[in-house]
């Protein structure tokens, strides 16, 4: 296990070091100390490293992550794991707005609450939130899965494309073109896989599925209100 201290090397130093490791390094496990809410910690990683961050992080932690497994032992700021390609980002506390924004792949787990716009424009990422999500979550969600073990705020799935949304708690309101959908066996298996990966105790049967009504896919004047 190797340590990096944000106080001594700065965010620049952390990213340079982690991204500069030789391709087949066996120094895979890193601990980052004193994040102090700084931004862009461990961004653009592209190797199967295991990184533990001890404390609260600022914006964009794990941004564009590929292959690495990041664990944030604290809360995370805006845009956690934004545009993630693969790998895992795990937030033990809460995450701020736009968690997993435009993520293409990988798994984002938030043990606590996520704020507004969780999974905005998601493009294949899987997100599992142990608590609640805020308003406009999964806005324009194109692909991927968003699992909400708590409640969802207003306008869930507004303008959604093909992302799958699973909610256990209450939904304050649904966004344009987002409707409740039937839970079939393939959805149950998918949800079971995600809950297991996120180490959650909830059962698939406790969730409802939401997705696109597909009425906005091609413009029709009768749906003009939704635009």
């Amino acid at each position, binding site marked *: 296990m190797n340590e990096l201290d944000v106080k001594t090397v700065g965010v620049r130093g952390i990213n340079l070091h982690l991204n500069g490791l030789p391709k087949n390094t066996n120094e895979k496990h890193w601990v980052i100390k004193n994040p102090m809410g700084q*931004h*862009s910690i461990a*961004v653009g990683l592209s190797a199967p490293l295991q990184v533990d961050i001890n404390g609260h992080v600022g914006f*964009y932690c794990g941004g564009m992550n590929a292959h690495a497994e990041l664990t944030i032992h604290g809360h995370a700021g805006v845009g956690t794991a*934004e*545009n993630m390609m693969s790998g895992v980002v795990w937030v033990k506390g809460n995450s701020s707005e736009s968690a997993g924004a*435009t993520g293409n792949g990988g798994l984002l787990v938030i043990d606590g609450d996520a704020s507004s*716009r969780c999974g905005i424009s998601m493009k294949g990422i899987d997100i599992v939130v142990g608590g609640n999500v805020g308003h406009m979550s999964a806005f324009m969600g194109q692909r991927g899965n968003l699992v909400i073990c708590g409640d969802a705020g207003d306008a869930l799935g507004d303008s959604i494309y093909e992302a799958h949304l699973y909610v256990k708690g209450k939904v304050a309101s649904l966004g344009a073109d987002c409707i409740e959908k039937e839970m079939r066996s393939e959805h149950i298996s998918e949800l079971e896989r995600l809950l297991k990966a996120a180490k959650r105790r909830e059962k698939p049967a406790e969730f409802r599925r939401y997705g696109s009504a597909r009425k906005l*896919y091609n413009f029709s*004047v009768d749906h003009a209100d939704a635009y």
Partner: protein
Amino acid sequence: MEKTPPTLPRKSATFDDYTLSEIRRAASTGIYDIRGGGAKRKLPHFDDLLFLGASISRYPLEGYREKCGTNVVLGTRFAKKPIELKIPITIAGMSFGSLSAQAKEALGRGATIAGTSTTTGDGGMTVEERGHSEILVYQYLPSRYGMNPDDLRRADAIEIVIGQGAKPGGGGMLLGQKISDRVAAMRCLPKGIDQRSACRHPDWTGPDDLEIKINELREITNWEKPIYIKIGGARPYYDVALAVKAGADVVVLDGMQGGTAATQEVFIEHVGQPTLACIRPAVRALQELGMHRKVQLIVSGGIRNGADVAKALALGVDAVSIGTAALVALGDNDPHWESEYNALGTTAGAYDDWHEGKDPAGITTQNPDLAKRLDPVLAGKRLSNYLKVMTLETQTIARANGKSHVHNLEPEDLCALTVEAAAMAQVPLAGTSWIPGKGGY
């Protein structure tokens, strides 16, 4: 008895033929008119400015022998690897999706021959464009279609798009006809649907948060690449100042004549200022911050020839960018296809329904039969010829005004033919020393 002489039938200037046809179309369909291109109406533009030239007090350079430099370096502020262009003309961002793969390849080829850059658009980076374009600027848009760290690192520069001249405040638009298998895969969308695009970035809003986002992109790319910020012609003075404060290396400013693949006609014609009106405020913002020539300014929107290039440079920009003109050079709206334009209900020079994907020239289409009409090698050569001519024209004008480098052109080399142009360009009305707005009148 004599018949009463009739008054002539008179059409209304307010309710002209175009307006009447548009009202009928709206009444019939219930949807706004969508088209491509930039503002078509007449606007104060570079044609309203003239260079003074050489005189008894100012001496020209000999053509060919006495060098007139055209190179420009972009991204000197923070990037480890600034971009060096041979000419002060770049190719603007246009997406694969709005354009065919062949067209993107042709742009790459032509730009590379000329020693300049191309820019990706709202759909991501294609193999063809990266392969054929020696210098490639990668756009970072609200939609983030196709965005990934590998392409970010493969790019030569990153252009964060906040807006574009045709629609400052509008997101991308690509209708189902053009969402082919390949486009759908790149954008992660179902095939054949009408793409609705976000108009704001998903994970930041405002210049204060933009500063943090720019730092993230720099961290991911090891501070190597210049970061551009692209804005439409909204509030150029404040926007440029804020782009500088947020940490930009380069600002790209697109006036209302700047084209788009598709958006609402009202957006194109009624939102965003003309290119000529944007330049002086933008340059002033840079000068007041002590950043002129340190944060470079690229201007686009209706650049058509070397005279436009020279005038923009004289007003203080570092380089210009072309989109519509580049497509025309490739063969867009060519009279060669007139019968097909007629079949589409239009004519060469007016064809702008690019969103329908039926372009006879094979440029703004995803239809493989149409797209194969464009030979990327030949079209690339045409583009490089056109860029060469624009460069020579710029040099001709610069030499005539006594400049050994095109960047030494200045506002005092110009005069204006109209009051509007004089006010916008802040140069005197020809034959007078009057600059409207300066000196209290």
